[in-house]
């Protein structure tokens, strides 16, 4: 081994809030993502509790219909765009560069910009609650319900412009992941050795860059309809509400895989570790993820079976939708094969991963039901659909993310989460989850429509709805236990070594938490389980050349025996740039509302102010780069 490297820092370390605002370290940005997204998850959860309280008893007046509409719209929007996606991005940010043996993401400042745009986008959407009403047309925002005639408040405008910010954030983040994973791999880390979480993050990023532009166009057209008097979605002017549905679901269905694939990646890391076996059928697990990604672009119209497309079209989309069951099934069999005969440790992370498999299978099977147009005609827009989507998104994504939290918390903090509390957390969430969502299958089959804010007594829905409400509060209790666990473990959790689970991938090779530069000497990879082999000598060292300090692009300055390398300097300008966009969005939002201030029209001035801030940030950002920082 060569002598340890020392990082060259060009600026003194900043502390406290400024440090977090200026950070370009992928690990800190990862933590920012995780903390903010978890906060949004709590808010989305509170919205769910409000809905369940309203629906717990028939003819309830706890929430009015209008408020209920806002709450369920923001619940969906929050959980999808502000919780599950950024939680996955948070783990990806923290773990992916370490897993591939890199020192940071490819574009650290762009990474910071992605985070700040996400945060400002989320705040922007939530400001609508205090400025005259949140969006209220569902997270899918079907036209013409979203047109000014039916949604006269600014709620939809907040939704559109907030989503634009989240879109730029996701696009920038995905480009960063793709370039990082393709180009910053350590020597020997070829595609057949990439950890599966990295594989799934790569597929997810490709899905995002190809799917998101579709909804960008959809919401731009909607905004033009609302603010500039066009008629894209207004049938009476020849426009077509179905255009919205096609553009939206062309994004919306890949989005489903954007949310589930990272969780599948996490599970594919957790199961082998706690079964003390390599993943069963690595190539199948990796390439079935790629197959899901490709097929994900061919199924969007299965969300639209009931709108009256020709039978041949419905049949084609039904076929492609069912086809997705094949690579998904391949993954499930491989996971079962992984734990089969393994030396299983039922840690909390493992419990959540096993819970993921079980719940995801139920969600997958109800998905096959919905992929069949005749069945879909019967149960579309009922609670059956709500049951299905929560089994894959909560039973799938969220349980997978919990597994990731228990698995990687020791790496991120140097302390374990409490395992006893973890098990209470797991069982409360799992039991509460099934109490909440299993009865929805029956209610849906009996015809209870989704998105209604109340129902009459005597339909036979009362008992199951009450059970669901009890279940929802049980989930909430489980999440509270998790929050408590976080709080006590951060301060007084059992100290964790650098390799607390006897892991196989590179993140366990560096300290817990890792230093800013991740690895003093970047690793050379000889197998799919580089760290396992280093510990247990499982793999013959092949003829890979040893590269002393990292990848070719690392600047290596030799000072005696020490290797030095540059780490990117912190910068405030990603935050400033995101803030500029945030300001400009208000100008667009109130395009027609604000009265002119004397002779000066206010809105163009607000937009101008935002653009000036934006250019100021770009200019200084560029200068910092030119100055070689």
């Amino acid at each position, binding site marked *: 081994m060569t002598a340890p490297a020392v990082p060259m820092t060009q600026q003194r370390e900043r502390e406290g809030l400024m440090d977090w605002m200026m950070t370009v370290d992928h690990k800190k940005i990862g933590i920012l993502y995780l903390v903010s997204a978890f906060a949004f998850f709590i808010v989305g959860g509170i919205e769910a509790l409000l809905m369940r309280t309203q629906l717990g008893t028939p003819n309830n007046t706890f929430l009015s219909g209008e408020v209920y509409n806002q709450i369920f719209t923001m619940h969906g929007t929050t959980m999808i765009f502000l919780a599950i996606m950024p939680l996955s991005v948070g783990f990806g940010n923290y773990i992916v560069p370490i897993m591939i043996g*890199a*020192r*940071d*993401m*490819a*574009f*650290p*400042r*762009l990474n910071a910009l992605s985070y700040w745009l996400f945060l400002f986008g989320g705040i922007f959407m939530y400001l609508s609650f205090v400025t005259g009403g949140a969006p209220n047309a569902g997270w899918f925002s079907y036209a013409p319900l979203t047109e000014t005639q039916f949604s006269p408040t600014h709620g939809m405008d907040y939704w559109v412009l907030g989503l634009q910010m989240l879109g730029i954030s996701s*696009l920038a983040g*995905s*480009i960063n992941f*793709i*370039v990082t994973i*393709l*180009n*910053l*791999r*350590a*020597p020997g880390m070829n595609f057949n050795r990439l950890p599966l979480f990295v594989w799934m993050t790569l597929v997810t990023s490709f899905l995002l*860059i*190809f*799917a*998101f*532009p*579709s909804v*960008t*166009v*959809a919401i*731009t*057209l909607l905004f*033009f309809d609302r603010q*500039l*008097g*066009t*008629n*894209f979605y207004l049938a009476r*002017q*020849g*426009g*077509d509400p179905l*255009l919205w549905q096609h*553009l939206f679901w*062309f994004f919306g269905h890949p989005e489903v895989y954007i949310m589930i694939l990272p969780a599948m990646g996490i599970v594919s890391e957790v199961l082998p570790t706690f079964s003390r076996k390599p993943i069963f059928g690595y190539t199948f697990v990796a390439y079935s993820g790629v197959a899901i990604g490709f097929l994900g672009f061919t199924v969007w119209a299965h969300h639209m079976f009931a709108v009256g497309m020709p039978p041949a079209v419905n049949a084609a989309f039904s076929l492609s939708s069912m086809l997705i069951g094949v690579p998904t099934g391949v993954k499930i069999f491989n996971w079962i094969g992984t734990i089969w005969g393994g030396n299983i440790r039922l840690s909390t992370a493992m419990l959540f991963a096993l819970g993921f498999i079980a719940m995801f299978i139920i969600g997958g099977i109800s998905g096959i039901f919905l992929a069949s147009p005749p069945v879909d005609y019967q149960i579309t827009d009922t609670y059956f659909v709500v049951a299905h989507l929560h089994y894959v998104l909560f039973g799938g994504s969220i349980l997978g993310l919990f597994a990731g939290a228990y698995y990687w918390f020791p790496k991120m903090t140097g302390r374990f989460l409490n395992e006893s509390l973890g098990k209470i957390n797991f069982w409360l969430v799992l039991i509460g989850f099934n109490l909440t969502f299993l009865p929805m299958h029956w209610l849906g089959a009996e015809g209870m429509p989704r998105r209604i804010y109340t129902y009459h007594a005597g339909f036979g829905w009362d008992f199951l709805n009450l059970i669901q409400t009890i279940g929802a509060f049980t989930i909430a209790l489980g999440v509270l236990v998790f929050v408590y666990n976080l709080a006590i473990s951060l301060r007084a959790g059992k100290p964790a070594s650098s390799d607390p689970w006897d892991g196989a991938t590179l993140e366990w090779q560096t300290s817990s938490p890792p230093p800013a530069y991740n690895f003093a000497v970047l690793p050379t990879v000889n197998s799919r389980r580089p760290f396992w082999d280093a510990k247990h000598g499982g793999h013959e060292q092949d003829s890979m050349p040893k590269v002393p300090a990292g*990848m*070719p*692009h*690392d*600047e290596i300055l030799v000072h005696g025996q020490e290797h030095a390398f*540059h*780490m*990117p300097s912190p*910068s405030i300008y990603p935050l400033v740039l995101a803030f500029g966009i945030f300001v400009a969005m208000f100008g667009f939002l109130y395009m027609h509302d604000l009265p002119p201030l004397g002779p000066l029209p206010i809105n163009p001035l607000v937009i101008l102010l935002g653009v000036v801030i934006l250019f100021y940030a770009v200019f200084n*950002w*560029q200068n*910092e*780069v*030119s100055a*070689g*920082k």
Partner: protein
Amino acid sequence: MEHSVSHSAHEHEMGSLGVDTKKLGMWTFLGSEVMLFTALIATYLVFRGKSVAGPTPQEAFADVTIVAFNTLVLLCSSLTMVLAHEGVERGDRKRFFAFILATAALGALFLSVQVYEYTKLINVEGMGLGVNLFSASFFTLTGFHGAHVSIGVLLLLITALRGWRQGFTKEFPLGVEMIGLYWHFVDLVWVVIFTLVYLLR
């Protein structure tokens, strides 16, 4: 554009894929842009013939001379962009500045002609965002493209300014090449738009 992980002693930062990191980022971005314009063009095509009121594309685009001229302008700007990049690779300052400014000027000329065309369409043909679907989807599509050209012109001018103030640093040719990728992409999109919107009216 972006500040990459480490400043390299090498001219290009060849990563594990064998491609420069920043260039790979630009290609990925353009991949996403393809989908953006696909959605916009699809919207325009879906609404073809669906307008309930005039004017129609046949009336508005009866004479495409001026747009054909504009297409020529943009195509020429791709040529000058290539020559500017060649100039910077050779270290030929005169050649570089002449051609990058020519590229920016051609871009600006394209935008001016587009503004003239818009004014004519609005004032003479009676088009407007709220007039009919054809107008709305036409202005949205070409407006998005025009915005891309505007950003391109701005980037070209900034690049020229950087080359003027800081000289040809080691990373400079790569910056020029990346602007070039973007510029050719925007040009290519225009060829598709010109064909589908104006020629196949």
